[in-house]
């Protein structure tokens, strides 16, 4: 019994070293690609952050309130947006907040532009979805730190590894919900589309996507929330944003800072969630066929 255990412990399978070989090989051979991605993401993101910070903060609050009204027609939400943003301004977390919002928007943008097309392709080829499904599960269950290390090696410290880690965590949501939405489009609608001579593309654009839109939008919303939950981890690798004060407060056991920055994250989360909710009147029509 003990002999067997010794054999097992002494002949360690070199999984870790194998992974390192792969990572090394990728770094040396695809440096140009990683550098390209880093550059391609960093420039627009930093540009956007600078642009938004150039807007006077009170004007920014006003713009957000206007957007809230246009999207939801709810004075309650407008009041919440104004008060929430003013509170963040008051706490001195304004710059971090803007960075966080930009980070989330870009991460979501990348996730959606990867996730929605993959979801659409999966709906045409269910075998692909069956293949992908366990991988998606894995992407959401593997502790983030495990893939944070190679990401750091590929992309260095900063914004970009933060975004990549966020995308890995958030992209399963749009893939799943796009797939789900399109596969649940009632056959009656698809047949109606076919019977009027739709081509495949027309069927997708004129019937399936609009019919699946509520579900796809739920995916978008989820994607944003998942991205937001990665803010702290993104800050660990140097991405900036509201996660940074959280990380700092952890290091210094600084309770006031921790509470304040945590509160700011919650406010951003609520605002984004409410802004993108489908309006009650829109929802009434969506369920029916």
């Amino acid at each position, binding site marked *: 019994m003990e002999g067997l255990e010794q054999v097992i412990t002494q002949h360690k399978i070199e999984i870790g070293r194998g992974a390192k070989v792969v990572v090394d090989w990728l770094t040396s051979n695809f440096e140009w690609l990683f550098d390209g991605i880093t550059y391609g993401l960093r420039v627009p993101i930093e540009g956007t952050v600078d642009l938004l910070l150039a807007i006077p903060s009170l004007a920014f609050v006003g713009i957000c309130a206007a957007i809230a009204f246009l999207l939801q027609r709810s004075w309650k939400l407008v009041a919440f947006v104004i008060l929430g943003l003013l509170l963040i301004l008051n706490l001195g977390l304004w710059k971090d907040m803007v960075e966080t919002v930009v980070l989330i928007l870009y991460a979501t943008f990348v996730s959606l532009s990867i996730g929605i097309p993959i979801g659409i392709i999966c709906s045409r080829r269910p075998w692909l979805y069956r293949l992908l499904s366990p991988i998606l599960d894995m992407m959401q269950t593997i502790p983030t730190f495990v893939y944070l290390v190679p990401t750091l090696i590929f992309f260095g410290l900063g914004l970009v590894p933060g975004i990549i880690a966020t995308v890995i965590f958030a992209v399963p949501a749009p893939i799943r919900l796009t797939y789900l939405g399109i596969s649940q489009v009632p056959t*009656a*609608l698809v047949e109606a589309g076919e*019977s009027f*001579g739709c081509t495949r593309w027309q069927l997708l654009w004129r019937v399936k996507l609009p019919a699946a839109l509520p579900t796809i939008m739920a995916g978008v919303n989820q994607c944003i929330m998942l991205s937001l939950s990665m803010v702290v981890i993104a800050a660990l690798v140097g991405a900036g944003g509201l996660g940074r004060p959280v990380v700092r407060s952890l290091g210094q056991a600084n309770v006031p800072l921790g509470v304040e920055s945590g509160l700011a994250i919650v406010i951003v989360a609520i605002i984004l969630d409410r802004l993108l909710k489908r309006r009650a009147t829109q929802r009434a029509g969506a369920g029916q066929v």
Partner: protein
Amino acid sequence: MSQNAIRFEHVDVIFGQNAPRAVSMLDQGQGRDAILDKTGCLVAVHDASVFVNEGEILVLMGLSGSGKSSLLRCVNGLNTVTRGKVIVHDGNREVDVARCEPETLRRLRRNRISMVFQQFGLMPWLTVRDNIGFGLDVRGMDRAERDRIVEEKIKLVRLDKFADKFSHELSGGMQQRVGLARAFATEADILLMDEPFSALDPLIREHLQDELIELQQKLKKTIVFVSHDLDEALKIGSRIAIMESGRVVQFGVPEEIILNPVNDYVRQFVASMNPLTVLKGGTLMRPVADLAREPGGTTIQLDRAGKCRCQLDARGKPVNLIVNGKPGEMVPYATDLDLAKLPDHAMVCGTDRTPMRAAVTVRSQTKRPLVLLGDDGELLGVVGEHEIYRGMLRQSEYARVNGAQPM
């Protein structure tokens, strides 16, 4: 044959993976159940051969699961035809939908065939207007032309006031009118309707049936209509195909089906029907040759008692009409004719297409038979009490000639 808009030739529709095996089992004469057990394939339609001419309405009838929808959906390729041909007349050529290129099928779907669905199949995110324009948008028609046609069709189904509503804001009957308008909008000549009115309550259903009949008189489409309701089928069908577990058991005009059901299945369908709503005067009339003549004279008796008499001119038109001892007068039948107000020297006249129901009202209100005249006013025959009884018993010259048993 060229006037057939659609012709099904020995169509089999089989659902399942192992269709070739199912086909060969069918040819060996095995039944549906045996085939389902052995191959897992479902024979939805077997050896169906029916047709519909331009401007006619073909009704596919049968119990649930008898294969009506499966047969209908072959026409625009929503179902694949396992064997046989579905010929659609397209311009001056004939296309076999079962074997044509996807491109050809798409062209037919866009321009020649449109469909109305039982559950309406309206797009919930589009307004009434955009739903109606759906087929035109798919075709890529330019905006102005499309808007013009949509506007016209909205008026046709009287939904002008609801043009910008969404379908969930409309009642079922209105939704189906949108479905109809959407199908009419493409100006396709062939309309496929899969139980379009079954999801509606009886009053609305009747109303829409009447509307369809009225629209059909204007638009003269070729319609294939699926129904499981014989009253509906007889009301709107020019021809009826009755299906029983995948086979067409009887195919004919409504009167033929009423008077001469081929088997018990059809007879059961027919039994609940009031024959007088379907039968036409011409089928049951006492023809002019059988009318009593005065001995040696040229005067014809139009009724048994001899109170209504006339003579025929050279072209067979009734002249010198005498009713109740006075010079008589012919009044053409119309649904809004007030029979109670007719003077007692008037006789009501119709054509051979006048329904028996009219003969019954005329007879009961005026106590005189309905006179049937041909296109040039010549006397064809009369429908009196005796003929009405025969109708109720589903007996006619027709049935006797064709050797059917009276029911």
